[in-house]
């Protein structure tokens, strides 16, 4: 059955257009629960610079939650439910279908309207319209995919969220912002020195990161729309590992200004520095729990790097990871129930997840040099960096390990991904 699902998927991918060519998706064991969906070409979409239905299909596909059905051979695409031959689609075992239309407005913008139909019930589940410029084609496609995803799964979609990552290319480093699928990338910062540890502000307007442009690690915050940058921490020694509090007012950072690498809290404007840990070990990679009350972090206080948890005001820390001798880079899911981190197994570094209530540990990936995990804001997928053929690439894996894919970023060496938050429309 699993094999069949894979073959079906491959066949489907083969049928898919060139826009999908860069995508490699592997789905293991998730097939049985996939919702069969047909996305029909939107009437008039040939007026657009690219197919919006291709974008919607690729988004749904990548989530691993849907089985996309061959949607060709329908003649003139229907734009109204009344034009749909429901019997035919039911015979194709389609549960849901998407139809729509694109119209050019007098001001040069486009209006995209679509309907999501429940095929067995022959009813409309959703109907929405968006006005967009041609340049907003991908974003609009992602928003439509989000609406479909939410209607069919009951969870918010993340296709219209953004990701940040760092590219190293011919001796230059660029912090780039792209759509969640890795497309549509724009440079936010270019530097001749490394940039690491980007962290999104909870409202998605700013990034904090570590830049080495002054030959040492300095924490900045950077407003994406204006390009305005502000030093958050530039103390003697190294300043690193910024992580925003859920209210966006302060950051947890690692400073070595008092000797050693220790955890501190600092206001986003760089004022009010408070030391959180006092010891001679390495404490690093702080992340807030979603309620803002606790901090997970990496420490070698027990002799090897492991993940610990402490109250946001400091005090005793509780060890969280016990399996293995090297567990770093903790990240908490938005519901606070799952921790993912990088775990060393022999000479491999792989993503692991820990169910915080059952204490169950699961290795999520089959790659060997995983780094920098980052949860999608809906908690379904984890974006991470890994190394394939000596080249840094971005990959994503579902929180249950069943859906895996690589992002098609066109760059020599990609690292340090960070998945941005939900942003309101």
């Amino acid at each position, binding site marked *: 059955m699993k094999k069949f699902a894979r073959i079906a998927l491959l066949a489907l991918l083969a049928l898919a257009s060139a826009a999908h060519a860069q995508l490699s998706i592997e789905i293991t064991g998730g097939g049985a629960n996939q919702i069969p969906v047909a996305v029909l070409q939107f009437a008039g979409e040939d007026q657009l610079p690219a197919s919006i239905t291709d974008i919607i299909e690729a988004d749904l596909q990548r989530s691993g939650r849907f089985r996309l059905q061959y949607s060709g051979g329908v003649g003139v695409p229907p734009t*109204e*439910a*009344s034009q749909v031959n429901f019997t035919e689609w039911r015979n194709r075992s389609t549960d849901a279908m998407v139809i729509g239309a694109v119209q050019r407005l007098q001001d040069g913008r486009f209006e*995209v*309207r679509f*309907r999501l139909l*429940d095929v067995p*019930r*022959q*009813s*409309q*589940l*959703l*109907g*929405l*319209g*968006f*006005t*967009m410029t041609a340049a907003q084609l991908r*974003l609009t496609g992602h928003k439509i995919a989000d609406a479909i995803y939410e209607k069919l799964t009951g969870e918010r979609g993340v296709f219209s969220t*953004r990701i940040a990552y760092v590219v190293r290319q011919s001796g230059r480093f660029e912090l780039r*912002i792209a759509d969640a699928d890795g497309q549509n990338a*724009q*440079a*936010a*910062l*270019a*530097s*001749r*020195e*490394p940039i*690491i540890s980007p962290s999104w502000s909870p409202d998605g307007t700013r990034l904090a990161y570590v*830049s*080495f442009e002054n*030959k*040492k*690690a300095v924490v900045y915050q*950077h407003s*994406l729309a204006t*390009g305005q940058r502000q030093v958050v921490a530039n103390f*003697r020694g*190294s300043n*690193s*590992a910024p992580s925003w509090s859920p209210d966006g007012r302060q950051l947890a950072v*690692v400073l*070595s200004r008092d000797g*050693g*690498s220790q955890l501190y809290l600092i206001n986003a404007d760089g004022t009010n520095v408070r030391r959180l840990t006092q010891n001679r070990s*390495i404490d*690093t*990679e702080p992340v807030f729990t979603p309620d803002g009350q606790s901090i997970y972090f*990496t420490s070698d206080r027990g002799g090897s790097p492991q993940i610990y948890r402490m109250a946001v005001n400091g005090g005793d820390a509780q060890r969280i990871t016990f399996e293995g001798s090297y567990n*770093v*880079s903790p990240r908490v899911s938005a519901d606070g129930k799952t921790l993912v981190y990088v775990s*060393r197994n022999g000479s491999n*570094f792989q993503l692991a997840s820990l169910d915080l209530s059952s204490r169950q540990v699961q290795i999520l990936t089959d790659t060997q040099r995983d780094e*920098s995990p980052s949860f999608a804001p809906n908690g379904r997928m984890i974006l991470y960096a890994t190394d394939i053929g000596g080249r840094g690439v971005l990959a994503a894996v579902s929180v249950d390990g069943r859906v895996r894919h690589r992002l098609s970023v066109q760059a020599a060496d990609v690292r*340090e991904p960070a998945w941005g938050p939900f942003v*309101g*429309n």
Partner: protein
Amino acid sequence: MKKALVAVLAVTFLWACSSDPVKEESKADVEERSASKPGAAPDGSASTPVKPQSITPVTVGLKPEAAVPNILRDPKNILSKRSIFYDYDSDAIKDEYRPMMQAHAKYLADNPNARLLVQGNTDERGGREYNLALGQRRAEVVKRLLVLLGGREPQIESVSLGEEKPRCEANTEDCHGQNRRSDMLHSGEF
């Protein structure tokens, strides 16, 4: 805006619950997210304008390097040697580096205005931030030794580059050995 969205969600929820077969639909039941949108759609109703997500790119450059005294650059002078290499997972400074460190400490003692930046580095294996902290530990050991040997604490800053500035990029033990190091930079070099 939020209220409008809630209203919209409520409406879609009602649709979801309805199981009536489709009869005749008009464009009017395409849902509208914003009621007061300028620019009318062909059927007179409104649709949600997609908000732009603009990004202003920034480029940062390096400061030009200032003049460095010749004595620090003369390849025959021990002060031109700046690197300390480490064993795997170690921050111990081997004895072979002692004469070099004594020379740098003496230079600092003789030149009270001189400043030194110690940059700790690691090989590429493991997490970037954890490696940054390991590099910091190496640099701090170097600084402590330089102070013991006569440098003054305020003259020396220890920082880490972690795994970010490898000297050698192959995934071999020889390369990893070249990357596990501390470098000393004098005033004008940083």
